[in-house]
């Protein structure tokens, strides 16, 4: 019996008077890889930011048996919840290594941190080649890899990925998704927000479809991929 790692109940997010997310509920179970797809402005990023406690919300968020909708965002990495923000959010003027070290800011185990940096470099050899380079000089895809690598430095149990394919060439997107799959294979639970529905549904086992602040469909990837509404709206068929 799988158990829920993170569960949102009746999640609502308002920006001033505008409701971005209008009472959605969903669950991600331990070890799962789940995606949330939908068009621009559907509320996907807002949802992810709420889970990472970057924006205020109402409703309930249960994570690893704990209510987290009120806890401060910076404490979540200690609980194993890591966010890779939209637009990557790397520290552009720090080197690759400094960026990775920053991902372990909350940790004090110096030797372990160094070992983890090497481990991340092992997964992302492109970064190793540029370890002393400033992150701002990396290509978009490499920056995305760095952002994922930095999140891994927190040894997460749950990784929230916000549009990792954004603005990248198709080849790069494939590489990023390979990395994501690799991370998942190491036992990290993943919630992926994507506009690229086909790719997301291809690597995830389940998906939620969001439309103007609501979840309109929720099913396994196979069912969603075959659903005529999904095909028409998100797969361009």
């Amino acid at each position: 019996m799988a158990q829920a790692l993170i569960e949102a109940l009746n999640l609502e997010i308002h920006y001033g008077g505008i409701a971005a997310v209008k009472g959605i509920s969903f669950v991600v179970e331990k070890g799962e890889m789940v995606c949330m797809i939908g068009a621009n402005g559907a509320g996907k990023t807002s949802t992810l930011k709420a889970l990472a406690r970057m924006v205020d919300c109402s409703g309930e968020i249960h994570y690893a048996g704990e209510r987290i909708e009120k806890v401060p965002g910076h404490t979540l990495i200690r609980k194993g919840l890591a966010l890779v923000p939209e637009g990557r959010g790397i520290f552009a003027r720090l080197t690759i290594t400094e960026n990775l070290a920053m991902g372990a800011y909350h940790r004090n185990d110096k030797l372990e941190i160094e070992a983890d940096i090497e481990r991340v470099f092992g997964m992302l050899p492109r970064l190793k080649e540029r370890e002393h380079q400033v992150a701002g000089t990396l290509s978009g895809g490499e920056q995305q890899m760095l952002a994922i690598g930095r999140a891994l430095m927190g040894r997460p149990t749950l990784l929230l990925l916000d549009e990792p394919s954004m603005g990248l060439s198709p080849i790069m997107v494939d590489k990023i998704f390979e990395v994501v799959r690799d991370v998942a294979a190491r036992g990290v639970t993943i919630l992926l927000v994507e506009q690229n529905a086909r790719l997301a549904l291809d690597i995830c086992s389940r998906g939620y479809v969001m439309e103007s602040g609501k979840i309109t469909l929720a099913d396994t990837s196979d069912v969603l991929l075959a659903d005529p509404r999904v095909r028409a709206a998100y797969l361009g068929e």
Partner: protein
Amino acid sequence: MNMLKGRVGLIMLGTALLILPFVLGMAGTAWVRITNFAVLYVLLSLGLNIVVGYAGLLDLGYIAFFAVGAYVYALLASPHFGIHLPFWIILPIGAFVACIAGMVLGAPTLRLRGDYLAIVTLGFGEIVRIFMNNLSNPINITNGPKGVNLIDPFHIGPINFAKTDTFAGLDVSGPIKYYYFLLVVLMVVIVINRRLQDSRIGRAWVAIREDEMAAKAAGINTRNIKLLAFAMGASFGGISGGMFAAIQGFVSPESFILNESIMVLAMVVLGGMGNIWGVVAGAIVLAFVPEVLRYTVEPAQMALFGRTLVEPEVLRMLIFGSALVLTMRFRPAGFWPETRHKREFIEPAEK
């Protein structure tokens, strides 16, 4: 070998700093006073550097903390209230009050950045100055625009910082005593700054400066760390303000106008945001250049044209302004930028 060289350099610099006031004293005590004010500006710039350089929070009202420190000193060591506490009690009080003021400014502005933060801090600086101007009614606290006069100088045992003493046949004037005191404070502040820069807190400031959400996601308590930057910067401002009040013997609101905030910010930016030595250099240059020009602009015109063509005061500021513009044009990251800030200008991000 290199370490030896460094040590020799350090000893030479130290000796130069030690005999400097006597050399300057030969040209007139005024130059020692100017030097003292330059050191005060260095202290202020180092304080502002924490806020602007390390944490990347643009503060246009920094002089307010200097004002708070100065007024705390003025009110606790002058006939105005008849209180005469010793300086070593007042300076920490001034730092503490300024620190509180820093948090009062920081707390409501936590969500603001860049231009928005600049506007709010600018407003805060003006509020403090206007308070000082008007807190004379109905209860006279600050004595309004007239300011507070007859402020006690420093006393260390029998040594009075307002009088000239003779040590071993050497006449040591008041400004020279303050110079040495300022030098000690400066060294302490530089050491604290360096420690901060290399600490966990320093790294957190850099992360916030680069990307606040990513910093938060990495486990940094962005709220507290930003407040800490404001509080620490303000404390340094408060201590400098206290020393300013004692050296000057007089404070009034007009010492704390917006221009002063901008001047200190210019010192930080011109010197090189985030780099201690750059900031020190920027402050010294910007504090001295106008003074040097004050004494040279008129004689130079007389020598060249036989009469004063342009008002010295106008020409002085014109030269000063042009020098600033040229420096920023050719060294956009400052005289001596911090490596990370330099990267912004020298290695543009390639997409």
